[in-house]
């Protein structure tokens, strides 16, 4: 018995040592470090906004935008532009403002309009890619745009720099406007009656969401982006009672899941995006159970 358990713990120690060595080996490559930096920042930004989006019932904007971004990316890649983001970013921001306006207009079947825009963009994107693509492997391209696959590991220095700048702007805006975002999220009419420009903040939230979605497409692909926005916020809401607590806890969850997901995907060669989302699902289930016991 004793000998057995000693051997057992020795084995585990051995595996741990090998894994740590392997992580140290990978981390010496700049592309892995880039992936970890970008993954952490995007996870942080998406979770901060996610809380507001979920509570304002704006999750659909995240979902719709990711499809629009896919369509824009497909068109941009057909024209062989040197920097796709320059096209995708403005298109997605414009779509964000449009979706916000239609979504608030309950008379005009807001949700159907959004379904139309997002599915339409998806279809046109795929069509364009098939008709005009010069690449030999179209379905491979489509799959990697939808699910992220390996593009996170091929980030250039410029893309990382862009991501860092955007993340700093997003976090700074969120911290400075935190109290106003809370007021608009909790009770828009009261906020407007006391002189807060609610429409301005709604638009700002939608624009920042568009920016994050375009950045996050590199990480998890366009189909899985909304998971990054929605899951950490929902997990945190299961167990935390205050708004500030929910924001902080969801940021922690999101960053941890992202780091664990990227590391696991490198160690076991799984797709980055779906591994991160799988980690988020596990945490969500854990928080659901913890919330029940409360």
């Amino acid at each position, binding site marked *: 018995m004793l000998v057995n358990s000693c051997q057992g713990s020795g084995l585990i120690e051995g595996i741990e040592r090998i894994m740590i060595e392997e992580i140290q080996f990978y981390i010496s490559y700049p592309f892995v470090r880039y992936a970890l930096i970008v993954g952490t920042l995007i996870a942080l930004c998406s979770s901060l906004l996610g809380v507001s989006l979920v509570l*304002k019932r704006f999750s659909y904007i995240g979902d719709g935008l990711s499809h629009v971004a896919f369509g824009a990316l497909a068109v941009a890649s057909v024209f062989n532009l040197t920097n796709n983001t320059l096209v995708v970013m403005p298109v997605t921001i414009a779509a964000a403002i449009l979706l916000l306006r239609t979504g608030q207009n309950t008379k005009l079947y807001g949700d159907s309009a959004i379904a139309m825009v997002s599915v339409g963009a998806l279809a046109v994107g795929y069509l364009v890619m098939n008709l005009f693509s010069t690449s030999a492997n179209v379905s491979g391209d489509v799959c990697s745009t939808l699910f992220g696959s390996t593009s996170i590991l091929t980030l250039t220095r410029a893309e990382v720099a862009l991501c860092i700048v955007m993340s700093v702007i997003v976090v700074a805006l969120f911290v400075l406007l*935190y109290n106003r975002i809370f007021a608009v999220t909790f*009770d828009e009419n009261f906020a407007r*009656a*006391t002189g*807060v420009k609610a429409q301005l903040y709604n638009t700002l939230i939608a624009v920042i969401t568009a920016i994050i979605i375009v950045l996050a497409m590199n990480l998890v692909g366009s189909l899985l982006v909304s998971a990054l926005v929605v899951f950490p916020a929902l997990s945190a809401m299961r167990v935390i009672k205050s*708004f500030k607590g*929910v924001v902080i806890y969801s940021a922690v969850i999101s960053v941890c899941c992202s780091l664990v997901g990227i590391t696991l995907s490198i160690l076991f060669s799984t797709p980055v995006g779906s591994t991160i989302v799988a980690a988020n699902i596990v945490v969500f289930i854990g928080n659901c159970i913890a919330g029940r016991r409360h």
Partner: protein
Amino acid sequence: MSYIKCKNLVLGYEGMVVAENISFEVNKGDYLCIVGENGAGKSTLMKTLLGLTPPMGGVFECSDGLNAHEIGYLPQQTFVQRDFPASVWEIVLSGTLSSCGRRPFFGRAQKELAEKNMRRMDIWNLRKECYRKLSGGQQQRVLLARALCASSVLLVLDEPVTGLDPKATVEFYQLIKRLNNEGLTIIMVSHDVQAAIEYASHILHIEKERSFIGTVQEYMESEFWRELANKLEM
């Protein structure tokens, strides 16, 4: 001294007229109840008073030291709020936002104001509780404390007793009456006419084409009250 003056107001939204010919004044210390049938434009009038919907015609003035946005508003609960994770403290503090000006964070003055109004509403011991776990009456007192943080002179309440049990309803009306006695001006939209004539000082009764404004005494002698009484008897 009148806080709010309306003359021949035409109410509506998206080009549709809901009610017209509304003229009334609200003076300091008044307790005005706005009554009328569903769809008569009560909610639209309230949104106009708050500056959320512009009037389609007529004159609407805030005067005598009442700044725009210096109105404490108690809205009807929205479905977003029912499962909103926020502590009582966070919600009440958010009422002081208009006094922050351009500063991004709350200062000591805002926190002291929030504490004062929470003690006034007897919810200081609930400050760390989660809003969604509170009873209906407690939630209304939280929102009332928030409204008091936004204004110390004028409160606007939208159907405040909807969903409260009878005991909480009576307690809530007494609380509002107490605030009125302390000098606050109250404007309340209500479908509860019995409570309106019991607690209010003035009644504004609006219908699609005509309206009544006067004291409770005058209201009970008017044809509006007689018609209402006839309907109730039938």
